[in-house]
């Protein structure tokens, strides 16, 4: 009885290496069989209620003190001095938050913003974002801002206002204002009503060439590639002239 039981639970010295060998062979076979392309992830941000709560829990006063580091490029009133730098005045807080997260994760490239975003803590980001989303638009500018630029020519304005209000159903281009406001917003989508022309054009071209690829489910890469060169210029001029403020504005 005693000997039998002992034999039943006896453990061969060779069993472990053999088992390890079987596991290694089986897993390598599985890896070979499976389609092991790495997933291309545009951004690690996912708009769950927890993410939105974390991004909008900032202290705007602390953000105001921190945002003085941003003044040099983005302007003391949120209007940048250089037109290729985005205006941050009244920008949706989730939009700035997402871009800073993407810069930190190197999903969007910028020689300036990547190191800056790495130096910010999650609390700093939430605070700065809260400040810029509450910043009022001053009617009497104190610094020489780049916005608004001169009015676009009427032909361009017509193209742009049609795309912004109605899109192009034939080509499957949705209207800009259904995501970028003022008609409707999605989480993380920037408001374009007070954005610089040069910046809008640069970003449309970067999306079309896929140099910028941090949009979730690639809506902007798709739409920017569908737009013609002329339409991209028209849209940039229209938004840069401050005409994107009214819903459905036509000329």
């Amino acid at each position: 009885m005693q000997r039998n039981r002992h034999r039943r639970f006896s453990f061969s010295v060779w069993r472990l290496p053999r088992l390890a060998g079987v596991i290694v062979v089986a897993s390598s076979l599985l890896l070979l069989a499976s389609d092991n392309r790495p997933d291309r992830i545009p951004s690690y941000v996912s708009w769950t209620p927890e993410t939105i709560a974390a991004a909008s829990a900032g202290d705007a006063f602390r953000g105001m003190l921190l945002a003085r580091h941003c003044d040099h490029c983005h302007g003391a009133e949120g209007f940048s001095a250089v037109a290729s730098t985005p205006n941050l005045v009244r920008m949706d807080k989730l939009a700035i938050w997402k871009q800073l997260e993407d810069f930190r994760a190197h999903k969007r490239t910028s020689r300036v913003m990547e190191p800056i975003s790495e130096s910010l803590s999650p609390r700093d980001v939430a605070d700065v974002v809260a400040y810029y989303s509450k910043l009022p638009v001053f009617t009497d500018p104190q610094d020489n801002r780049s916005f608004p630029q001169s009015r676009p020519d009427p032909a361009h304005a017509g193209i742009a206002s049609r795309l912004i209000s109605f899109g192009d159903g034939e080509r499957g281009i949705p209207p800009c204002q259904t995501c970028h406001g003022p008609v409707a917003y999605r989480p993380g989508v920037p408001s374009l009503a007070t954005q610089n022309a040069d910046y809008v054009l640069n970003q449309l071209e970067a999306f079309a060439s896929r140099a910028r690829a941090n949009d979730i489910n690639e809506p902007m890469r798709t739409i920017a590639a569908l737009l013609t060169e002329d339409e991209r210029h028209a849209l940039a001029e229209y938004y840069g002239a401050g005409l994107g403020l009214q819903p459905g504005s036509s000329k």
Partner: protein
Amino acid sequence: MNWQKVRTLLITVLLLCLIPATRYYQIDVPLLRFLKGSRQVDPLALHLSGEFVENNLGTEQGPDGSVTVRMIAQQYLFIPHCILVPAGVPVHLRITSADAVHSLTFNGTDYAVKVLPGTISDAQLEFPHPGEYQMPCREFCGAGHYAMRSELKVVPREQFPVLRPEERGNCAAQ
């Protein structure tokens, strides 16, 4: 039969009852989900992992020649915007929504696939005639609904290229 055996039997029966109970009360059991191959997806995290990451979208050709098309519907786009399929071959369509309820229809055919957030819609489709079809959304999904449409290119079977894994989405280049 002593009382320990009765106790063991009772516990076993109770534990076995838990399995149908999880099904009846629709309790999420990750192991069962894994074994069944679930149709549930997280609409907010499609881009992070799983079947609908962006380099997996588009037309996939299996080693046996079967064709699978994966798409995402989102306000107000179908992604990818253009799909390439061979004519006369059964196409397995897998589509899910990232936000609202959409409906993918194919002009010139009577196919309509309802797309709901959180679930994968499966459909077996076949396009006998080569050509270009518009794929509009037929479920009102918001302010830009009328502009939500994408394109389907059906090419003769002989002209359908052997797609490499990185070429799934680029219909325009064909």
